[in-house]
């Protein structure tokens, strides 16, 4: 019974994918959308069921499906593990997934390939579930690759636009670089311990007699995989470009779920990272620097989705900072609250873009507050949450990260706090430019402005409520439900909660003040000052450098892509012709020898017989002489 339910949970979205792929076009748009949504909702209901069960019994559910690999002493089962961590992920993947499917029914209704869109989304959810529920790293890798594929398909969903195709390819290739690291990490662990099962790995690693140097290399490789999938320095550049995909995709894949896979992986393997402090330091530094760099780029972007994309990179950086400091439960907490408010923000921006007829430039917006009250209110709540204003959910999670950083390393705390102030600034810049003052678009756009229909606003409202109350799952007053719930996953060291003293209250006050400063600056400049960002060609000085994302893409182009292209040109134009000339030369040599030999075969039987007799005689004479 349990096994069947688990299988339904896993396979429902896959069935949805198959049906939509083969019959979606015939079934019609409404049917395709409804089917996709129901498939994911079914998984969500089952996730809730299992979650309630595990929450009560605190016993993970492990289901072995079949023996997968068995080579000499290396054995691997294909199993499913529903423990506290994977169920938490399942809840928000399928929960937010269902909401976004619902949203997409309305958002994509004009698209001729709607059934394809839903089949890809369902496939994505299937792979994401696989990633989360597998009982060993190899199953996680299957899901890992699968979500990468779906991300590629969905970024390039509007494949008629070459820029979008390029963005899709970029995402795929950047991810591949990270995946290579991940794969090498898996191989190292596999060769060291002859198993990849989480439970057995944990037992083997915590036994303490493993080679630390090898473990460090393995952890580093796994972290490289995480930087690719979770868009950290130096592999983050694909995420902003991934905004080429339809907005529900940005919300689901590139904000709420897929990009948190790296954090899931590190949390899952926390016993490994605990033993490699060197890698933990790198993770913390990379996370903090990413948070700051991405936030600073976000300050000057004018595309509403680009701002949110850089904000996602920045928030992911904060989560990695927490991971690097060993505060896994804090990182998980921020993943959850971030999923709520960032999905809400993306869906809100989608609602705006929908109303603006696919205009994404905030310089052409403004004054939408009165026309789209629900979108405005929900986005405002999410914005307050991401800015870390109490009592919204983001305040609690971000505050815990900052507190952890303060206790571990002051410079990292400063960097993270700066990033938070910037976050508050650019998010309110977004709000003021989009919703306040007067409308700056064309008359025709103004004429068509409207509040989005119920299917779009309903998910917004649900997510806004969640962003409002999401902080309740881990309150800082010593009775955090989340920390208790996750406790079985981590070693004892992480249980220590910060006792709230003067320092902690001061830190909270500083964090809130920082957020308010950011908001105040934005208010002063964009609402009171009525400033509208300059047109592209008028941007100059340092602002131009930031606006162009520090020219990182250009640098990658010049340092990596160009040399590789040069090398491939060299191979194609010089080496390949040389090689093929050699091969063809050998071929024609054999041909020439053959035609020389074939002259002997002139068809005259007399000659053949003569040769035969001469040959035979020669053999006889030889034998005769040899035996003498």
């Amino acid at each position, binding site marked *: 019974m349990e096994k069947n339910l688990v299988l339904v949970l896993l396979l429902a979205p896959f069935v949805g994918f198959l049906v939509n792929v083969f019959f979606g076009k015939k079934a019609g748009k409404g049917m395709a959308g409804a089917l996709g949504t129901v498939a994911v909702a079914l998984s969500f209901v089952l996730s809730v069921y299992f979650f309630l069960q595990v929450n009560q019994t605190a016993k993970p559910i492990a289901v072995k499906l079949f023996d997968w690999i068995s080579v000499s002493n290396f054995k691997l089962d294909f199993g499913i593990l529903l423990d506290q961590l994977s169920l938490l992920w399942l809840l928000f993947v399928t929960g937010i997934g269902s909401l976004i499917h619902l949203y997409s029914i309305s958002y994509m209704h004009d698209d001729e390939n709607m059934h394809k869109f839903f089949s890809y989304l369902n496939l994505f959810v299937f792979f994401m579930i696989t990633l989360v529920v597998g009982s060993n790293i190899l199953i996680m890798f299957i899901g890992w690759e699968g979500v990468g594929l779906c991300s590629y398909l969905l970024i390039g969903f509007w494949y008629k636009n070459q820029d979008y195709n390029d963005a899709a390819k970029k995402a795929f290739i950047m991810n591949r670089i990270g995946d290579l690291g991940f794969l090498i990490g898996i191989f190292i662990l596999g060769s060291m311990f002859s198993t990849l099962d989480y439970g057995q790995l944990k037992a083997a690693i915590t036994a303490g007699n493993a080679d630390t140097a090898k473990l460090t290399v393995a952890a580093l490789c796994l972290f490289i995989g995480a930087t690719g999938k979770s868009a950290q320095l130096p592999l983050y550049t694909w995420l902003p470009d991934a905004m080429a995909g339809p907005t529900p995709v940005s919300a689901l894949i590139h904000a709420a779920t897929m990009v948190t896979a790296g954090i899931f992986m590190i949390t899952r393997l926390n016993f490994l990272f605990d033993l490699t402090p060197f890698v933990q330091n790198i993770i913390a530094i990379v996370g903090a620097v990413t948070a700051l760099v991405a936030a600073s780029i976000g300050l000057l972007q004018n595309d509403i989705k680009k701002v949110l994309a850089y904000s996602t990179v920045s928030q992911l950086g904060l989560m990695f900072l927490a991971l690097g400091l060993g505060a896994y439960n804090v990182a998980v907490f921020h993943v959850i609250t971030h999923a709520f408010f960032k999905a809400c923000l993306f869906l809100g921006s989608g609602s705006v873009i929908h109303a603006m007829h696919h205009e994404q430039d905030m310089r052409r917006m403004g004054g939408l507050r009165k026309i789209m009250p629900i979108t405005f209110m929900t986005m405002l709540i999410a914005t307050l949450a991401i800015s870390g204003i109490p009592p919204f959910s983001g305040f609690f999670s971000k505050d815990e990260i900052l507190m952890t950083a303060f206790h571990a390393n002051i410079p990292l705390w400063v960097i993270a706090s700066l990033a938070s102030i910037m976050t508050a600034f650019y998010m309110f810049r977004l709000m003021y430019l989009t919703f306040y003052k007067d409308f700056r678009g064309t008359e025709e756009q103004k004429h068509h402005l409207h509040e989005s229909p119920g299917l779009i606003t309903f998910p917004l409202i649900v997510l806004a409520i969640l962003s409002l109350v999401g902080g309740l799952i881990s309150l800082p007053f010593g009775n955090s439900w989340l920390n208790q719930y996750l406790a079985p996953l981590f070693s004892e060291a992480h249980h220590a909660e910060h006792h709230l003293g003067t320092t902690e209250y001061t830190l909270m006050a500083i964090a809130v003040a920082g957020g308010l400063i950011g908001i105040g600056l934005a208010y002063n400049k964009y609402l009171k000052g009525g400033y509208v960002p300059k047109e592209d060609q008028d941007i100059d000085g340092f602002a131009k450098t930031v606006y162009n994302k520090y020219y990182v893409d250009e640098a990658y182009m010049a340092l990596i892509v160009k040399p590789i292209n040069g090398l491939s040109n060299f191979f194609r134009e010089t080496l390949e012709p040389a090689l093929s000339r050699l091969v063809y030369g050998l071929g024609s040599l054999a041909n020439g020898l053959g035609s020389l030999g*074939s002259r002997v075969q002139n*068809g005259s039987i007399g000659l053949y*017989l003569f040769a035969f007799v001469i040959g035979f005689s020669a053999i006889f004479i030889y034998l005769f002489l040899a035996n003498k």
Partner: protein
Amino acid sequence: MENILNHIGIENYIFLSVILFCIGVFGVLYRRNAIIVFMSIEIMLNAVNLLFVAFSTYHQDAEGQVFVFFSMAVAAAEVAVGLAILVAIFRNIGSIDIANLKNLKG
């Protein structure tokens, strides 16, 4: 039984056999009529058969003679096939001159 080799020495059989064999070889090499080439081959075959029988008697061992029976049977079958091929060739190109058979040219 009285041994015939007491009257005519073994060397005479060997000489006869070599002469027959050489006649066969020259026939094969110099004649162009396929039937005569064929007959020459038969002469070579029988030269060897003769030698077999001679040596068989010389060693007082019947195996050689038995072998010759087999050899003759095979030769008969071969002749049947060979002649059939020749007939077919003659029907096709109206000649059995081996100089005309050049279809196997490489």
